[in-house]
């Protein structure tokens, strides 16, 4: 079997399908730490093969996106059609080279991507790579908050659900997990806004910071674009508080979606490990229930959890587009939605292609981490 059962995209539900395959037979927690050091030729080869697999993945996605986007015709007409005269349109189409055969354009595009050039947006003439770098920081920040929320909420609740399997707490938690999944992030976001911003007026409605804080952060030298880091460096407690207050609702909204998945995943895997012989053995030795759950059952269940958590980047990116639109969080997703509205398909194509590269790289890193932790995940 191919050693990458965890490469599947994990939805809340198919995660059961995925993690059943990803859970190897009851991992006995013995020599894995030593086996990690004793690198046989396996690990190096595994990493190499996984690394080489990135190339076809990126190639296929980029080709797919290119072909799909080009079926609608040239991007100039899509973006500016109706605003410019026919002759002006034609002039710009020729200037950008969109009048040439698609196959020529395709190879040129591949060549450009190879050198890190993802094109220039039509609506505001910026290199896509610059757009991604500018707004990517905001998305990264949002994803970070979301992951923290997901960890804090999802993992302990998953442990509780597994421990009380098929009893009342389990039923409540499972329905909760399904609710987290069934609620689209944008609706969850709207609800939170309605309750905490509009009714209770505790938190700001949208944006990443108030205008005054944003101005102050702009003046900072060597700013990272990640507001929390910038705010901490500015040392102004008002700005820090302001940035954090803006982050709470988007972070929780996106985080709860992911938390539902973590909850399920931890529960499923812990149910497996809780019924193993070594847990029974530990229990008969008089190991306390809390320790039993946290050390004996949780640790071995961690491997599939780590791989799947790493793969959440794909889901997180999709969720981030919607969350950012809901909260006007000026990140990559918000920007993507703007370009979609403006029918700037060069920008969309560039951003999506670059995201494909990011997703492929993340999957690679996750697979390597999984292989380092668990020696069985190799060729």
């Amino acid at each position, binding site marked *: 079997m191919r050693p990458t059962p965890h*490469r*599947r*995209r994990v939805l809340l*539900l*198919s995660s*059961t*399908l995925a993690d*059943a395959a990803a*859970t190897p*037979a*009851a991992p006995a927690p013995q020599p894995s730490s030593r086996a990690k050091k004793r690198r046989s030729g396996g690990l190096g080869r595994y990493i190499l093969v996984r690394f080489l697999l990135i190339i*076809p*993945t990126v190639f*296929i*996605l980029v080709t797919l*996106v290119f072909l799909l*986007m080009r*079926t*609608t015709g040239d991007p100039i007409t899509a973006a500016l059609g109706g605003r410019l005269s026919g002759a002006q349109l034609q002039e710009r189409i020729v200037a950008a080279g969109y009048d040439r055969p698609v196959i020529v354009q395709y190879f040129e595009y591949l060549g450009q991507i190879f050198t890190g050039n993802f094109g220039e947006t039509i609506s505001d003439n910026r290199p896509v790579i610059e757009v991604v770098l500018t707004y990517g920081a905001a998305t990264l920040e949002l994803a970070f908050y979301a992951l923290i929320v997901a960890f804090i909420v999802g993992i302990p609740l998953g442990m509780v659900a597994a421990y009380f399997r*098929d009893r009342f707490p389990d*039923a409540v938690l*499972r*329905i909760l997990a*399904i609710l987290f*999944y*069934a*609620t*689209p992030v*944008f*609706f969850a976001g*709207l*609800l939170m*806004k*309605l309750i905490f*911003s*509009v*009714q209770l007026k505790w938190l700001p*409605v949208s944006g990443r910071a108030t205008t005054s804080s944003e101005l102050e952060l702009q003046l900072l030298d060597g700013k990272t674009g990640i507001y929390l880091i910038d705010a901490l460096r500015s040392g102004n407690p008002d700005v820090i508080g302001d940035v954090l207050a803006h982050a709470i609702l988007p972070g929780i909204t996106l985080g709860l979606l992911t938390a539902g998945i973590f909850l399920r995943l931890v529960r499923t895997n812990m*149910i*497996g490990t809780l019924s*193993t012989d070594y847990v029974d053995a530990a229990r008969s030795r008089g190991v306390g229930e809390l320790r039993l759950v946290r050390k004996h059952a949780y640790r071995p269940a961690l491997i599939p959890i780590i791989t799947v958590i790493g*793969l959440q980047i*794909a*889901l997180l990116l*999709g969720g981030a*587009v*919607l969350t950012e*639109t*809901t909260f006007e969080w000026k990140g990559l997703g918000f920007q993507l*939605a703007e370009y*979609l*509205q403006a*029918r700037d*398909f060069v920008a*969309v194509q560039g951003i*999506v292609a670059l*995201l494909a590269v990011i*997703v*492929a790289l993340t*999957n690679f890193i996750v697979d390597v981490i999984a292989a380092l932790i668990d020696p069985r995940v190799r060729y």
Partner: protein
Amino acid sequence: MTVTTPKTVPDAPDRKRSLLSRLPIVHQVRQSMGIQRFMLVAGLVVTGLFILTALLAPVIAPYGYSQLRGDDGAFGSQQAPSADHLFGTTVGGYDVLSRTIWGAQTALSVVIVAVILSIFVGVFLGLVSGYFGGWLDRVLVVVCDAIYAFPTLLLAIVMSIAISGGQSSLWGGVFAAAISITVVFIPQYFRVIRAETVRIKSEAYVESAKVVGASNARIIFRHVLRNATRTLPLIFTLNASEAILTLAGLGFLGFGIEPTSAAEWGFDLNKAIVDVSSGVWWTALPPGIAIVLAVLGVTLVGESLNDLADPRLRGRRRVAAASGTVAATSVVPGGAQTAGPAGLGGLESGETFGDDGIETRP
């Protein structure tokens, strides 16, 4: 929804049961117990309500989805809930309740079209790829893996741009959304069916068929397909819920169906963002709750079916004993035998149970 999906009868003992208990959902309801039964039944009820609402939308909805004026003039914009408009009206002057009800119809059509298309394409590719193997198989696997790893919503966005340039009429919009979602789902069916096909290919009855001289087409469709489809109802329910969410996501980003050609929940929620900031709650809640309920219902069904099929998650021993051969019910093709740390020995010790709906094993 799944009720219509036929299920093949795997082995002899099953044939003794009555027709009623062999129907997919009925069998599962009888097999389940406790919390699982509650979740399954609750899911079935909610899903049933969703389908009924969708089918009866013209009867239930007080107004049309694009109706702006009634007998006594225009509805008016952002009217608070009243006797005339139970959930008020939107910025555009539509009746919120009516659009929410009609939205069920749009969602249901998209789900049906998307799932049927992806089942056909995915199953066909999976069968061919798994049965013939070779370079075609390798290429398809890599392509599907690549698509599988990519964010669903982004792919659906790109697809919908390619299909409709982003906007269209009711059926154009439904098909554009459905096909966009289809592309995302094909790899899932492909993977499952391919894995099953590879396993079944080496079974004795396939070899016998070959020896007898059956054509490849006959073997694929008569022998392999019939034995490879038992996990389909499961993926089907799981995908249906994701289809509703993806459709809503597309609509929310403005890539769904125009408000004049159909009602779509995601689109209405997008329009409600501004309303929420000014304290207008009635435009956001109804479509949002509708999405949550529809997804919740379908998901509860899918999840219960999945748990009942997975020996590691299926509640009790007697349930396990009642559910037939494990390899024949698990979603993880060929994996169940080794996957369960609990071991199958513990689950399948051949105990017999009588009453309360759980059948006795011979």
